[in-house]
């Protein structure tokens, strides 16, 4: 008998995002040793069995969308290779696309060279977001370590509800009632685009990265204290200023960048909850560029303060989406939601600090760790920020050409220049 899983609200929303991005979330963990391959296979199978959505195909029959649990083989999920050029192999692996109709929604690879290894994962955003992928990786690494060192079966993966309305669990009854009635659609449209080239059939996905040293982070922290800004706000201000410079927008233009918010902040606890998406957008707009980067910082602080004061930050529009998906057949609701939904042209997602201890295999932490969001289709862009061992990594995943790569790298140079100005 076919085993089916309910397609939750965020699964459907991320499916709708197929026009804007490839929905893949990427992870790269570098170790200075080679983990036990057979043990890794065992842990991956246990993870897949405990999180069945990872080996399910998404069925969109326009009426009742759902996941259908599929048989799989570990060799289709996990590959081990010994490439000469690890960087190239990692890049090729991370930029692959897993269709939602495939039997597996996560792929894992281990690249080995000179007794060092790189563990990479690619998963469909419909299954879980970066926030939960961090938890998943933590449990994955803990299970691996206990299995290898103590022989404990790696079956401790979080399972439970994947429903969107778990976000209301941390509220009082009245507050939850208010939050469940936030029908207001706060999608604001802004026509300012990141200056990439036009779409081309030869475009290929690429991940551009830029790292900022521990020293830069420390300076950003102290400068943030001085200016009353968080690191995220400083990065966002720098993003704004750089994009004004890169695209040549008039200084007086109002520009908007959407910022991903982890809605788990509203939840009582994520224990006993399944891996899923709980991410929304906060629209950060500045009225003009500002005479210098410090004025931009002020604008960003003012904009994000408006959201920070809101107890229901990020929860606007969710009841409307739920209403749309709940009362109409999927084919109809999707078309209606598309009319009201405006995907942000420029966005930023700060996945935050990646804790080395959480990703340690048998006590050995990764030498470097990196996560990034989906590959966006032009003209949409997403800047992802992760921090590992006090090193900030900014990344942008784009489906584009060599010129786009050049533009993104130029943008990173401008970011660096503007961050240097802030911390100078």
């Amino acid at each position, binding site marked *: 008998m076919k085993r089916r899983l309910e397609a939750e609200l965020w699964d459907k929303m991320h499916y709708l995002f197929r026009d804007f991005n490839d929905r893949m979330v990427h992870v790269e963990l570098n170790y200075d040793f080679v983990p036990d391959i*057979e043990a890794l*296979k*065992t842990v991956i*199978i*246990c993870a*897949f*069995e405990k999180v069945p959505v990872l*080996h399910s195909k998404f069925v969109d029959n326009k009426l*009742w969308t759902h996941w259908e649990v599929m*048989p*799989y*083989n*570990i*060799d289709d999920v996990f590959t081990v290779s010994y490439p000469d050029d690890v960087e190239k192999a990692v890049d090729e692996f991370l930029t692959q696309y897993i269709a939602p109709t495939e039997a597996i929604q996560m792929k894992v690879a281990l690249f080995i060279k000179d007794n060092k290894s790189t563990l990479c994962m690619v998963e469909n955003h419909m299954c879980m977001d970066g926030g939960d992928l961090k938890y998943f990786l933590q449990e994955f690494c803990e299970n691996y370590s206990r*299995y290898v060192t103590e*022989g404990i*079966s*790696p*079956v401790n993966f979080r399972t439970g509800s994947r429903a969107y309305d778990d976000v209301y669990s941390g509220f009082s009854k*009245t*507050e939850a*009632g*208010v939050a*469940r*009635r936030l029908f207001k659609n706060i999608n604001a449209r802004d026509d300012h685009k990141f200056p990439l080239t036009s779409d081309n059939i030869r475009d290929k996905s690429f991940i551009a990265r830029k790292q900022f040293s521990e020293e830069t982070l420390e300076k950003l922290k102290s400068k943030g204290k001085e200016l009353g800004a968080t690191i995220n706000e400083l990065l966002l201000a720098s993003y704004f200023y750089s994009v004004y410079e890169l695209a040549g927008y008039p200084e007086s233009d109002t520009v908007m960048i959407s910022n991903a918010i982890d809605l788990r902040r509203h939840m009582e606890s994520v224990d006993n909850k399944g891996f899923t998406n709980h991410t929304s957008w906060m629209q950060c707009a500045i009225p003009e560029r500002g005479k210098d980067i410090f004025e931009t910082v002020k604008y960003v602080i003012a904009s994000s303060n408006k959201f920070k*004061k*809101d*107890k*229901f930050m990020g929860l606007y529009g969710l009841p409307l989406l739920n209403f749309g998906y*709940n*009362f109409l057949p999927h084919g109809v609701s999707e078309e209606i939601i598309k009319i009201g939904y405006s995907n942000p042209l420029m966005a930023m997602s700060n996945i935050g600090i990646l804790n080395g201890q959480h990703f340690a295999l048998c006590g050995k932490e990764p030498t470097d760790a990196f996560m990034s969001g989906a590959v966006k289709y032009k003209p949409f862009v997403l800047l992802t920020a992760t921090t590992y061992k006090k090193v900030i990594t900014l990344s942008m995943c784009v489906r584009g050409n060599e010129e786009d790569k050049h533009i993104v790298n130029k943008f990173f140079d401008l970011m660096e220049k503007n961050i240097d100005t802030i911390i100078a």
Partner: protein
Amino acid sequence: MNKLLEYIENSCKNLADNQSSYRYKKMILDKMTERADEISRAGLRDEKVLTELIADEFCDLEAGYAEHEKKKRRKKLLKIGLPVGSLVFLTLILISFFVVSSTTGAWNKTWLVIVGGVFALVIFWFSLAIAKLCTMRRVFHPIARVLIAGCALLFAVFMFLFFLMMMPELLVWPILPAGVIIALLADLIFAFATKQKLRTISLFVYMPTISTMLYIILSAYKIVTWTAGWPIILLGLVADVAYIIYIIISNMKYFTYKQEVEE
């Protein structure tokens, strides 16, 4: 396989050693073996991990046995009891029909015994189906709602036929619109009790329909005249408006909620 057997034996050690528990253990073993084959085909080689992974899916086997036995008894009862019971019931109805008819000689009226019996049986079958449908996915609930309305209408038709034997046609026919009212009310109760989607919309549509039926019934019994009684229809709309006001008032606290702002 041996480890799965060991797990089942350890988990079910308090169960009586009889044919029933044997069948249950065999069923669990078959299911576990099937899962083990599935996971092994995925590539898992470590038998200890495989056993623990499956054991995690099949926990608390003793409680499962009690539930399984309960289900089995119910299934058996339905499988044998339902056709046999229905047959016995129909035979009794038929006997009653002949006994009542031959003793009273009112053959032109006693056929109602058979109609009543068949309707009662159909309502009983529908009730079982409704109970089953309620345990299934929500997509099947509309079928339960149709069956509930069907039960109400069958009951109304029987009452109509019953009173038709004793009263003139003009006094009896309003039972049929009364049946529609009962069907709609039953559906509303089900919709609200099981929190069906669009139940409020159902309420908005049903209230004017119910008031219209009420107008027809009251006018038919000359409690109000056909010409002066039409405002009763408006009562349905008034009830709709009253319900909207109730919704607004009960939701007001959410819309006027003021956040405590932490600076």
